[in-house]
């Protein structure tokens, strides 16, 4: 498969749908895979996901507050895994808690963005995130 592949880890179906709709509405071309929990995300990245496409995603959009294993724990495990640590992880959350922000960067999150309430801002944000992390950023070979 060519083109960008983004993994979205988001327990709220509404938010996942909003991301999908916003990407489409912003004419951002990428393949979005969605999982609802931290456990599923780790399985997915280990190559066990149902629609795994045989290569690592270009970046991960990771929610912090997840049922079961939290976003922080997913991030920690991902960054400990030598095979997975190079995947840029963008925390995408409603939380503006300084603790969450601090904890995320300490665990080597690549970016931390707060979900904007307005749809127009969400579109604009996703367009920028995809453009930067999918196109401008030079990833580890």
């Amino acid at each position, binding site marked *: 498969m060519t083109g960008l592949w983004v993994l979205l880890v988001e327990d709220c179906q*509404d938010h996942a749908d*909003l991301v999908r709709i916003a990407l489409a509405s912003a004419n951002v071309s990428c393949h979005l895979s969605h999982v609802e929990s931290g456990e599923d995300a780790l399985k997915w990245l280990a190559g066990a996901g149902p629609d795994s496409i045989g290569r690592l995603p270009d970046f991960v959009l990771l929610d912090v*507050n997840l*049922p079961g294993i939290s976003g922080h724990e997913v991030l920690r495990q991902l960054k400990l895994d030598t095979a997975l640590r190079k995947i840029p992880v963008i925390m995408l959350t409603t*939380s503006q808690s300084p603790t969450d922000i601090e904890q995320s960067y300490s665990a080597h999150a690549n970016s931390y963005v707060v979900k904007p*309430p307005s749809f127009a801002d*969400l579109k604009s944000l996703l367009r920028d995130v995809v453009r930067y992390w999918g196109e401008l950023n030079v990833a580890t070979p």
Partner: protein
Amino acid sequence: MAETRVLATPDIAGSLWTALLALIMLAWPAAAQDQRPYETPPLRVVSAISPPNAFLDSRRKPAGFAVDLILALGERMGRGVEFTFTANMQEALAAIATGRADILAGVVSTPERARIIAFSHPFSKTNVVLYALRDRAPGLANSDFADLRIGVRAGGLAESTVFDRLGVAPTLFDTVEETMIALNTAAVDLVAAPQAQWEHILRVLGIENRYALVGEPLVEGALSIGVDLRQPELLREIDAELIDFMGEARFETLREKWFGPQSFWTVEMIGMGSAAVIAAVLASWLTALARGRNRLRSVEHRETLRREELAHAYGQELERKNALLKYSNSEMEHILFAVTHDLKSPIVTVRGFAGVLEEAAQDGDVVAMQSASKRILAGTEKLGIVTDALLAFGSFGRSEIVVVDLDLKPVLDDVKTMLHTDFIAAGALLDVRQPLDALRADPSQFLRLVLNLIGNAVRYGCPTPGMTIEVSTESTNDGTIVNVRDHGPGVPENQRQEVFRLFRRYGPARPESTGLGLAIVQKIALKHGGSCWIEDGHGGGAVFRVFFPNQAAAATHFAEHRKSA
């Protein structure tokens, strides 16, 4: 008669007291008369033994300032006088009320007495003051009188004064001497009494230094002659003679006799009965002195123990309150977290889909518009649910718990009934492991706790029909543990504390779940001074365990639990 009598006399005083009572019995009802041949019937005077105003002298003849005064008035009125002495003021008033006497010898006006007698022109002043043992007096001056025992002679001015001025129900005694004995033996802390009366008794006994006044006089009153209300003519006559007599030199002579520096009132003049009383007072004082040191030691020891116990109890209570405060703070953090996450999340949904709706409207995409509208509605519903849940959690268990001994069986029966449809839907079974230990908990909160635990087990711990939820108890040294075990997927170790937090869920999100259930379980456990935790079930599943301490262990356990948490 007096309503309450507290008499704490040593044995020696008891026997003397008996002698006195026998003598008083001999004195009643035969009236002591001043035999003079008058044509008119004699004035029938009644009085409680109340030196130096009215008492029986060593020859058992009536004596005292009021007695002399009334004899003089009787002489002026051309009437004989017949004295009767009673054990206390109430009996004297009763004698007037029942027509056995016309006059009360020396009396201070009180509302209670005014229902039976009218008061003559006052002929002497009297103060009601508080006395304490001298060494205790300074410490009592600024005390809250409500905490002190105050002895008074029943029916006297002191009784009504103490009640009116201090708002304290005094301890009643029949005689002045009994109040003195009670003070000596620490049966009371203070005695309220007419100052002149007490000072004379103390002077006669030579023990003025043993007692001291406490505070200002409670009341400053006047001594009058009380006349039967039904005899206004007699009152007028007595008043006229009294006012005249008080203007004469004889009145001053009388006053000198009873109250002057060369007072006629000496130990010799006090009747045998009164002497016995004085002996009793002295005996009680000496006995009290002898016992004082030992009693003081014993009292101090008891007081030390009591203080230590109190300090311990207060310490425990303080720890519990501190722990509760810490829990409240952490609970507040959870609520803030919930507000930032669980309220923000639906807001993002609602506003996001409002934007989608707007775009779909511009494009004329009706299907997308309908879909967005549904999401907005669902989002606002979610907002409502979260808000209600927050309010419910905040207000739940705000009231103090009332802990009682609880039998689990009826609680489990109730829970089974309440969760009937959930059990049917999940195809789950409830297995209650006997015997169930009793525990101490607030009944309504305990019901809620068990309901939440079993409800949680049915929803998350029974994914396939035919699974069993087991409830059992374990007795420990300091309380009881309630176990609710399921055979579901279990809870990973790193989630076992998280799931008790507000709005934290483990497992698939369910529409009916508010994320409150286990947070409330923890809140209830902590309020009882207990704790809750999750363990692996042997052979799979999770065991939710809640510890309820017995009463003594509650505060300590609670504090320890919060420290470790």
